[in-house]
């Protein structure tokens, strides 16, 4: 049963600390997305990769957020330094370039910054 995995599932940290979230896309998928979900803003696209290359990170605060794909099986999202307003659920999703556009979501990482 292929699925997107994310670690950690929960993270509580102090303001100013570095946070790294990891995602393993479904094997064979070549597109990866990072979303942030908050009550106020809903689901926002932070970054998008195709074949490991970043294509769109316009939704990401550049001064503190960074997203990478070191290899085809791992995507990372880092926040440094973290702030209380970064508290949210972060989702990773993967897909292919088929015409279906369907994205398969991971279970999310709930981040709390104190």
């Amino acid at each position, binding site marked *: 049963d292929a699925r997107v995995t994310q670690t950690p599932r929960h993270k509580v940290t102090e303001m100013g600390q570095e946070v790294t979230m990891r995602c393993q896309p479904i094997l064979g998928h070549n597109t990866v997305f990072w979303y942030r979900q908050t009550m106020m803003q809903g689901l926002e696209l932070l970054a998008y990769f195709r074949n490991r290359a970043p294509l769109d990170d316009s939704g990401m605060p550049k001064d503190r957020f960074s997203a990478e794909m070191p290899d085809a099986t791992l995507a990372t999202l880092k926040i440094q330094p973290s702030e209380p307003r970064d508290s949210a659920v972060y989702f990773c999703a993967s897909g292919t370039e088929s015409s279906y*556009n369907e994205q398969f979501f991971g279970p999310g990482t709930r981040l709390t910054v104190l």
Partner: protein
Amino acid sequence: AQTVTQSQPEMSVQEAETVTLSCTYDTSESDYYLFWYKQPPSRQMILVIRQEAYKQQNATENRFSVNFQKAAKSFSLKISDSQLGDAAMYFCAFPSGGYNKLIFGAGTRLAVHP
């Protein structure tokens, strides 16, 4: 700009009854897909149903069906024989700007009463 609007923040339905969730979108494209995702309390985003814009026939998946009106840019989700497990947030989503990017509506929270 391409947008997705869900005008019903909350809906409720009695078990075994039928409920319809509305979604409107705006696009200049002629060929695209539309999606409904379900997010139960577990936070997992689950694809409920997909509609291909060039198909006249409305998509159906068991108790879930859509009423797709392309000219009106309307894409509503009908849930028949509602079950307690249908209680969740429902998001309408639309691909934007190519590269499989999805824009999500604000969501509709569905409560199912026994």
